[in-house]
């Protein structure tokens, strides 16, 4: 019995240690998430309130970024971020849907298709700061000026591979019979794709677009030297444009308390936006999967 019992004990110990480790690893991730969200809420809500106490600070959404020591809000940054993200998404959706369609419907296993698919996957996780450098070289330096437009192009270039990938994946899931049925009814291929394939895959395509939006709305690195920043409210995208991530970056690293307060408020604003868009996208994807 003892000859059997010895290995059994070490096996049981190994098993116990291993299971404990897996539990602890998961716990570490959850504690990290909770700690980040907790400080974000604590500090961020402090930024939403009036400095001296007494309710919400309306300046946050009605006034532009202040000089140190004076009152102000984040209006120009919020407006600038929205303009750039919307402009970027229009371009990225157009490119992503079409490129994803080409990969799924036309290229399939062709050699060129494989190359594009591979490079798109690399582009998907390429450092975003390099995209910023690239746009600086082709748009900012030749035109001799930072612009919101350049920032939007940089963001579009980050969002497009995400949309391409998800579009291709959901289109591939559509049954071949669907395509055959449509073509057999006499529909041209583009109509089959537009009215049948895209229609049946729209939930997944929308999820991809939402995830891409979540990704770019927090992106900072590519905007640092494309859109730069702007102290004032401006709707002109040919000029430097204020945006939340760069304002947060500048204000957080400043020595002024009221600037840091605004940085935390901005960080909370971005995180809530990104996380809620992500959750909505996931719920959409799940509903689609279970339907």
């Amino acid at each position: 019995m003892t000859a059997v019992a010895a290995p059994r004990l070490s096996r049981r110990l190994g098993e116990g240690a291993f299971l404990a480790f897996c539990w602890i690893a998961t716990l570490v991730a959850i504690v990290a998430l909770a700690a980040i969200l907790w400080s974000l809420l604590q500090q961020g809500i402090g930024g939403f309130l009036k400095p001296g106490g007494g309710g919400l600070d309306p300046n946050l959404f009605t006034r532009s970024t202040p000089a140190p020591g004076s009152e102000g809000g984040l209006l120009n940054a919020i407006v600038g971020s929205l303009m750039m993200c919307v402009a970027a998404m229009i371009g990225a959706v157009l490119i992503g849907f079409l490129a994803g369609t080409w990969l799924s419907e036309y290229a399939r296993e062709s050699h060129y298709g494989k190359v594009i698919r591979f490079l798109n996957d690399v582009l998907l996780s390429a450092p975003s700061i390099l995209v910023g450098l690239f746009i600086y070289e082709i748009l900012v330096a030749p035109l001799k000026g930072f612009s919101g437009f350049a920032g939007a192009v940089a963001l579009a270039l980050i969002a497009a591979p995400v949309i391409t990938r998800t579009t291709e994946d959901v289109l591939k899931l559509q049954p071949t019979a669907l395509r055959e049925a449509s073509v057999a009814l006499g529909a041209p291929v583009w109509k089959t794709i537009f009215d049948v394939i895209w229609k049946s895959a729209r939930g997944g395509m929308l999820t991809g677009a939402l995830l891409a939006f979540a990704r770019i709305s927090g992106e900072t690195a590519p905007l640092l030297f494309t859109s730069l920043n702007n102290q004032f409210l401006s709707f002109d995208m040919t000029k430097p444009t204020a945006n939340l991530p760069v304002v947060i970056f500048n204000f957080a690293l400043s020595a002024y308390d009221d600037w840091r307060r605004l940085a935390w408020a901005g960080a909370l604003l971005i995180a809530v936006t990104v996380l809620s868009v992500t959750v909505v996208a996931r719920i959409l994807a799940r509903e689609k999967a279970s339907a």
Partner: protein
Amino acid sequence: MTAAADTPPAVPAAPRARSAEGAGFDRVFEVLCFGAATFLLLALGGIVVSLVIGGWPAFARFGPGFFTSAEWDPVQEIFGASGAIAGTLISSALALLFALPLSFGIAIFLVELCPPVLRRPIGTAVELLAGIPSIVYGMWGLFVFAPWFARRVQMPIMMSAEPGSLWETITAGVPNGAGILTASIILAIMILPFIAATMRELLLTIPPQVRESAYGLGSTTFEVIRKVSLPYIRTGAIGAVMLGLGRALGETMAVTFIIGNAHGFPTSIFASGSTIASTIANEFAEAPPGLHSASLIALGLVLFIITFTVLALARLLIGRQANL
């Protein structure tokens, strides 16, 4: 699909003309789709070409010395990349060291151990960790984590280090919390959900029969994972790790906040350092056109080559394993 399928569909009264309405647009649409796909290829090509052209003056001026020198002096216009390259590689390697066991543990937990009720909430929590923007990690790292880390971890370790020992050398530095090790820990938290998610997908591709037969032979969970599951997904798992490494190498904002941004070759894990991405983020907007900005773009090219190699390997390995 029972009775209806057996009866033949009604024959159309009179077939219409063969050429369908709007068939002429087919070609146009295909070209549009092809153009969009090619645009992505051109974008990646454009990144490479612009980095090579922009960085060329730096390579031409410093030659191989650009990679070996650690001197970074914008005033005298002397630029060497080895400090930033070393900072990038060291911080990413340390991040991987922390993230690897944790993300394996999480993936195994989610697949093998998690009570079904908790599976979705925990899965979502890990996904949310991946969704938090880099700049938020940076602020949290600098204002919340670094002070705590300095007080609770850095100080005791530095106090207990024996004078003159190697341990004292690699833990030397200013105990303000900002530095290479802090950056690595934050990076580890950031890449952990990506590795865990890919690992989890890979574990789910293992046929249940394979695992169940191992359990049937009396294996413990640990033995099934170690001797059956991990060997089964080995190639893809290496790919998943490389994918995480690729992210860590190129991560910019969080690192810029907490690595301390000191040029030169890092000698201690608590010392301030810099990475390629943080150097570019800090200096590029203010760099005058000329050698300084060319050197920063050259750094960008180095980063591109490193990450491209890592990501390409990752995709090849994962792609061979499963369609992820």
